[in-house]
């Protein structure tokens, strides 16, 4: 496998973890989060600090997971207080605050970021395999959650909180759980990203990234793990596949985003579903 392929597959793996974890919060539990980049970034920074201090991969992974989920549970508490209308904008706010704060902290390297993160020792392909394994684990976990009682409770909360309450499902605890799990996985992805680039600057975790992740969830089909995985792979490859348009890449990318949503608003999952329904009828 060429180094180019390895680097792209690594980023695909990271994006799959991010999109699937966001799908647990926004897809399963209906809590729209447009600040997933902040949790990803928190994980990356924590892992980078841990890696620089100890050079231990497991410790760095742990640090990433903990940092992501701590910030996530904090935001989860906030989500209990505000109307769902406000949540989307509040999470955008979390993202901007994270970037605006880290930018100014000299102990986090400020604008220069954190560099000199020691290599994991697995090499580029070793890293890629680790990333792919963790991505697969995330997907399997997501599928498992979706079929478990917890997944049922998430969906109940997402669709109608009051109805969920009559079934004895306390919305609060499940919202917190969704945020905690989803952001822990984002933190994990952050740690993997720090291993991949070996230096981080805060610009990599901006709001645009969060929107891209939400686009993966929406295009994949909100709530569908497989759809979201496919969209994460597709949206990561798309800019590479359209490299030949060079100067017009963002234009084409934006245009395709609009077109895909306009033509398949229910996402890939709905598209596939409809296709099956149609063939069955025929």
């Amino acid at each position: 496998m060429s180094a180019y392929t390895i680097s792209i597959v690594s980023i695909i793996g990271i994006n799959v973890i991010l999109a699937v974890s966001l799908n647990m919060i926004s897809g399963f539990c209906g809590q729209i989060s447009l600040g997933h980049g902040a949790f990803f970034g928190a994980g990356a920074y924590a892992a980078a600090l841990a890696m620089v201090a100890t050079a231990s991969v497991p410790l760095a992974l742990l640090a990433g997971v903990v940092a992501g989920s701590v910030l996530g549970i904090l935001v989860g508490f906030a989500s209990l207080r505000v109307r769902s209308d406000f949540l989307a904008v509040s999470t955008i706010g979390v993202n901007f605050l994270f970037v605006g704060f880290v930018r100014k902290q000299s102990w986090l390297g400020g604008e220069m970021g954190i560099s000199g993160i020691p290599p994991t020792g697995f090499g580029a392909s070793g890293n890629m395999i680790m990333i792919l394994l963790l991505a697969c684990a995330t997907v399997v976990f997501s599928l498992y959650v979706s079929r478990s009682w917890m997944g049922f409770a998430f969906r109940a909360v997402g669709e109608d909180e009051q109805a969920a309450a009559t079934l004895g499902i306390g919305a609060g605890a499940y919202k917190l759980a969704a945020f905690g799990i989803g952001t822990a996985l984002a933190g994990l992805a952050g740690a993997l990203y720090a291993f991949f680039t070996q230096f981080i600057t805060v610009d990599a975790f901006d709001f645009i990234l969060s929107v891209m992740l939400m686009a993966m969830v929406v295009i994949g089909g909100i709530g569908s793990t497989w759809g979201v995985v496919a969209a994460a792979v597709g949206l990561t490859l798309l800019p590479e596949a359209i490299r030949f348009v060079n100067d017009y890449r963002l234009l084409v990318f934006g245009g395709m985003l609009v077109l895909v949503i306009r033509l398949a608003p229910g996402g890939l999952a709905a598209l596939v579903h409809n296709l099956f329904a149609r063939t069955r009828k025929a």
Partner: protein
Amino acid sequence: MYYIDLAVTGVSFGCMYAMMSVGLTLVYGLLRILHVAHAAVFALGAYVVVLVANATGSIALGFLAAVIVTPLFGIAIYRLLYEPLLRYRPDVPMIASVGLLVLMQDAFRIMFGEQGVTFRQNALSFTTFDFHGVTISAVQIALIVTAAVVFAGLHLFTTRTRTGLGWRATVSRPKIAASFGVDPVKVRYLNFAIGSALAAVAGGLVALLNNLVDPSIGFVVSYKALAIIVLGGLGSVRGTLVASLVLGLVEAYGTIFIGAWLDRDAIAFLALIVLLMIRPQGFTGARTA
């Protein structure tokens, strides 16, 4: 004098935020969509103003062209992008909106150059007045006066005219308004037209203020506007006006006093989150949907 200088900065910027956000909050009130592509409308307005002004030599003609072109563009966004997506979850049209913004930003770059466009003649940008040590520029005065006129006009329109009353009624009580014979689709067109025109005026004034229109001109303003409309209690014009002015002032002072540990662009969101923790229903209280 120093604190008054800061206040002038804050108020003039608040006025810009208000004109930018009003369209956004009304779109939200009507359709529950976070109309992120409003930033593209803002940028389009700025480009039209500068290009027409450079071609004709008249800045006034530039503004006139902008308030004609952008409402059509706004209506087209509604008609072609949002209307077919209304029955889906609000995140779906929002992502489409983001896609449109990315597309437009790059289209501006490709059409008008990455270097941005400046006014060929822009005496306004370099004119300032000095009142006993307080400096205020011609464009700042223009921003404040325009916003005052616009909001007074908007108030009269929504309280004194039939169309305006219907519009306001539809935003707050869509079903009742419809039963009184107000056509909700017409209201939406009107809404996108007026909101887009105001954003264009704001964009044009910012263009004058910076003497530069580049493809990213709408970017930051657009996300701050999202914070503003939530602070203002989604859908409320008055709340948005208040929130805009407050944010302008907070930023003007905040840049100096908390700039060392927090980026200016994050101040709006800090204010938002603090407020939501204290008053989860927003500044002006709950809006009855």
